């Protein structure tokens, strides 16, 4: 956390709208990001009592998302679209005297949905509902790369397709979702990280204030999946930003702006070696990762001008 922001937490709303409990692991980056989003949204979050009275299905949507064997994707999508409609309608009905102004519906998406259910998601985006989509990315996509790049097991003769530099470049390029989404007609798209809370809160507020759809991709370090100690969640996320592995930028109305500039770019090796899942990653491939990261950042710098 930056030195200047030591006392800034005092300016944030003190109300806690995040429901604590056992749905997340120790030191979960995704839970931290979700909590920061609820803090930023503040008045935009509708209380559960209102929902119970007027729209009970929305409350049960959360519980149903855990039981995926019962609910097909279409049914979930229909409920989601209906709930966005309901929130937008109630936002239009509000008077100025109402303290809890509802601005926009916020939809949390897992990044894995982009891989497994791309059609459903494109269907959701085509609806042109006015909402803020927050996508939490805990980098499951890198796990396949690691397992492919790992050396062969002892004695076992196993043929694997060797990982090439192009594969690594493609996977890192696929992570750049915001420019693609911006082309689809979203008025505000951005990337953020749960390790930089004020940046994330600022972007969520911008996404709520803009007219039209908004999309934010949030990097959420995962102590269980990435294999590191739970107290290092924020430090690992900072390394991802400082090495240029996950550059922070925003695109509003077609113009791109980098929000966290790399003054002294650290080598990517620092970020990779902070996680124990990269322990069997061959060192000869690390220059390829560095080259891919540099290419993505150079591309962003070019787009900014």
């Amino acid at each position: 956390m930056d030195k200047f922001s030591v006392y800034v937490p005092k300016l944030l709303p003190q109300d806690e709208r995040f429901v604590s409990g056992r749905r997340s692991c120790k030191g979960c980056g995704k839970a931290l990001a979700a909590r920061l989003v609820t803090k930023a949204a503040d008045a935009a979050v509708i209380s559960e009592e209102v929902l119970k009275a007027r729209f009970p299905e929305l409350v049960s949507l959360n519980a149903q998302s855990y039981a995926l064997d019962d609910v097909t994707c279409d049914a979930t999508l229909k409920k989601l679209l209906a709930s966005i409609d309901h929130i937008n309608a109630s936002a239009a009905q509000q008077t100025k005297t109402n303290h809890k102004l509802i601005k926009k519906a916020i939809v949390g998406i897992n990044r894995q949905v982009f891989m497994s259910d791309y059609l459903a998601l494109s269907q959701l985006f085509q609806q042109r509902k006015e909402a803020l989509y927050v996508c939490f990315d805990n980098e499951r996509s890198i796990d396949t790369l690691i397992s492919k790049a790992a050396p062969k097991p002892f004695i076992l003769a196993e043929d694997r397709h060797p990982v090439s530099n192009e594969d690594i470049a493609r996977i890192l390029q696929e992570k750049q979702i915001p420019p693609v989404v911006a082309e689809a007609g979203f008025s505000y798209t951005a990337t953020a990280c749960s390790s930089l809370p004020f940046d994330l809160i600022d972007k969520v507020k911008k996404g709520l204030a803009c007219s039209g759809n908004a999309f934010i991709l949030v990097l959420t370090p995962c102590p269980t999946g990435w294999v590191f100690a739970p107290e290092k969640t924020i430090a690992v996320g900072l390394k991802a930003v400082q090495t240029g592995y996950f550059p922070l930028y925003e695109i509003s109305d077609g113009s791109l702006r980098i929000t966290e500039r790399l003054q002294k770019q650290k080598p990517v090796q620092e970020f990779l070696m902070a996680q124990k899942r990269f322990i069997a990653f061959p060192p000869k491939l690390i220059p390829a990762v560095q080259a891919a990261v540099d290419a993505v950042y150079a591309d962003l710098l070019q787009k900014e001008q």
Partner: protein
Amino acid sequence: MKKQNTPNEQLLASVTTNFFSNEDWRFEKPVWDNQKCIRCGVCGLSCPDGAIFQNGEGYYEADETYCKGCGLCKQQCWTGCISMEPYAEPPPWLALVRKIRS
């Protein structure tokens, strides 16, 4: 075939399911040294569970039913006033595991 719940039952289940206690998986708890604490609130912001709150004097405390003992608050503290202390009583499942192992 699974029993289909009515919407009201689903609603009840979403409200009454006991998500709300982490008492049985924690080993350590954060303890604040109030003489060093500058009451900045960085620990409360960095807690993934929202388990840190301000008491009447303005100092910070952890809610023991929600705190998982991850230690992020200790790592983020500027003055180093937070230390992790183990609980006097181990979680109840640990005794069961030890019994099975022996």
